[in-house]
């Protein structure tokens, strides 16, 4: 096992990694910008090194500075956390070249999944479901109808040469299909001089469901359950759940097996997440994140697996500490991302924390680098805390989250706590009836109006 790890990140995730290291008896090196000298993880780290000014490119994205810090402090491994350099294949390669362990997958796998085309091709090869539709171009309207019936309406007719929405038509039913077919072809002809079109299922109300896997260097790959991250604003996740309120046990088993098998065949090592759009029982692979996710705590709650310590373990060449048979999904977990932002305009609201009271008690977890007197720098992300709850079932988890949010006190900066409270009291949310478009509309109706 490593004796010293450098944490190439900041905020709550740097603290999360530091906690795992402490518990494993591994010394920690915090690298930070001049704006983060007072950060919690810097204060708690065994060693800390200032690597640059506040600007990301000169500090947290500064590969050379981070590598120098690792060499100088004698760190044997670098944990990149999420964001920043966590999915930067070039950085992972540099780290490998310096005989330092990158706590993540190989640079090849990062590069492979970083290229969306190659990622989809790979997944297809390993039988991970993509958007259902025609295999390539569709010859005539009859075959289009046949395929449409298979994948189910609505369907999308797209120019193979297409892009930018041109040569793209939606058909809600068979009667619309023929017209859509012709319009799409003529548009395609005009736009790209090529009237070849293909057909795929149109996801009009999809959910964002992602699958957590983790593999070791001994060929073991675990499926740790899915997360439903459909509640997003401007592609930023706001509230996540595990398990998804809509999947059946069988669907969970199916997508879990498919994903784990694919990763096993790929020889994927360390933590990774396969993101899918889900609708009407169809899973469509979008992309894979080759790193730890912000929302990993909901998975830790339902699977009882410490993802960060397992990441470190497998990076050190050890086998995963649990087998798939030991993983039993228990109860329901919800995470609320607490941001320092204006509750109406959503503009980030950095500032000095003058009151901070953390909720506590049974089934409540708070991951936050906040402390009273801390000044949130304006240079970085506005997420200041993750509040996560666990309960025997979803209704109880919702009740527990509401209870915890009531107890939480943050003053000095504005937060989105009220937004979470509104979401948790909404009938549709309580029924689990939401798509990736739901939150934007909800905000339009319930927040902007005020």
């Amino acid at each position, binding site marked *: 096992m490593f004796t010293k790890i450098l944490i190439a990140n900041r905020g709550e995730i740097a603290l999360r990694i530091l906690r795992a290291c402490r518990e494993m008896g591994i010394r920690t090196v915090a690298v930070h910008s001049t704006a983060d000298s007072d950060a919690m993880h810097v204060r*708690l780290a065994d060693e800390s090194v200032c690597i640059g*000014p506040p600007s990301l490119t000169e500090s947290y994205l500064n590969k050379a500075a981070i590598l120098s810090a690792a060499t100088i402090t004698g760190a044997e491994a670098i944990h990149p956390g999420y964001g920043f350099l966590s999915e930067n294949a070039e950085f992972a390669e540099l780290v490998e070249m310096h005989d330092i362990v990158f706590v993540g997958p190989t640079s090849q796998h990062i590069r492979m999944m970083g290229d969306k085309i190659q990622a989809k091709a790979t997944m297809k090869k390993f039988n991970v479901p993509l958007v259902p539709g025609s295999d390539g171009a569709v010859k005539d309207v009859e075959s289009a109808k046949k395929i449409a019936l298979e994948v189910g309406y609505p369907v999308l007719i797209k120019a193979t040469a297409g892009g930018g929405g041109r040569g793209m038509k939606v058909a809600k039913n068979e009667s619309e299909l023929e017209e859509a077919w012709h319009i799409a072809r003529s548009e395609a002809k005009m736009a790209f001089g090529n009237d070849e079109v293909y057909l795929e299922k149109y996801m009009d109300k999809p959910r964002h469901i992602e699958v957590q896997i983790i593999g070791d260097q001994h060929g073991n790959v675990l499926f740790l359950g899915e997360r439903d991250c459909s509640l997003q604003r401007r592609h930023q996740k706001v509230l996540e759940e595990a398990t998804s309120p809509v999947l059946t046990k069988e669907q969970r088993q199916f997508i879990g097996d498919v994903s784990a098998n694919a990763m096993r065949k790929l020889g994927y090592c360390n933590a990774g997440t396969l993101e899918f759009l889900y609708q009407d029982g169809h899973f469509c692979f979008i992309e894979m994140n080759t790193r730890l996710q912000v929302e990993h705590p909901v998975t830790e709650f339902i699977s009882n697996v410490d993802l960060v310590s397992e990441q470190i373990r497998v990076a050190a060449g050890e086998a995963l500490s649990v087998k798939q048979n030991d993983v039993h999904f228990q109860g329901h977990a919800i995470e609320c991302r607490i941001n320092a932002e204006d509750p109406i305009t959503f503009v980030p609201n950095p500032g000095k924390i003058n009151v901070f009271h953390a909720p506590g008690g049974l089934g409540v977890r708070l991951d936050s680098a906040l402390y009273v007197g801390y000044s949130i720098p304006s240079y970085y992300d506005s997420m200041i805390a993750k509040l996560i709850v666990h309960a025997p079932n979803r209704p109880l988890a919702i009740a527990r989250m509401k209870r915890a949010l009531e107890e939480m006190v943050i003053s000095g900066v504005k937060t989105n706590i009220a937004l979470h409270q509104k979401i948790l009291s909404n009938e549709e949310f309580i029924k689990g009836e939401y798509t990736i478009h739901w939150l934007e509309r909800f905000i339009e109706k319930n927040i902007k109006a005020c």
Partner: protein
Amino acid sequence: MSKMLVDVEIIRILANILTETGLSEIEIAEKDQRIRVARNLTHNAVVSPVLEAKQETEATQQFSESQQDPAKHPGAVLSPMIGIAYLTPEPSSPPLVSVGQEVQAGQVVMLIEAMKTFNQIRAHKAGKITRILISSGEPVEYGEALMIIE
């Protein structure tokens, strides 16, 4: 919805009262409704938590903080990067500069090795070197004071 719009007006009214009366906080509650307007004035006690939190801090951290005093010196030559500082171009050769020596602006006074490349550190102004704050072969972090020129 209309009620909410009315609330907005009330908030504006309350905000004005807050200003005219110099209050820091007004709260009105009625059944399920609550309106609270506040304006933060100075917070004094927020210093102590920081000090508290400092107790958790590692020696190295405190060390780098104590180094911040010379870094504020107008004559301080600050490290532009993290790396290993060298006072001599070669292990054998004599130091580039020494305390008491007069230097020209732009004169190379030190080398910092980062990622196997040696970076020349130049005097930002002419003057006499009054202090050299690091010893050859010592690691330095970004913004750390290397020497003082006065």
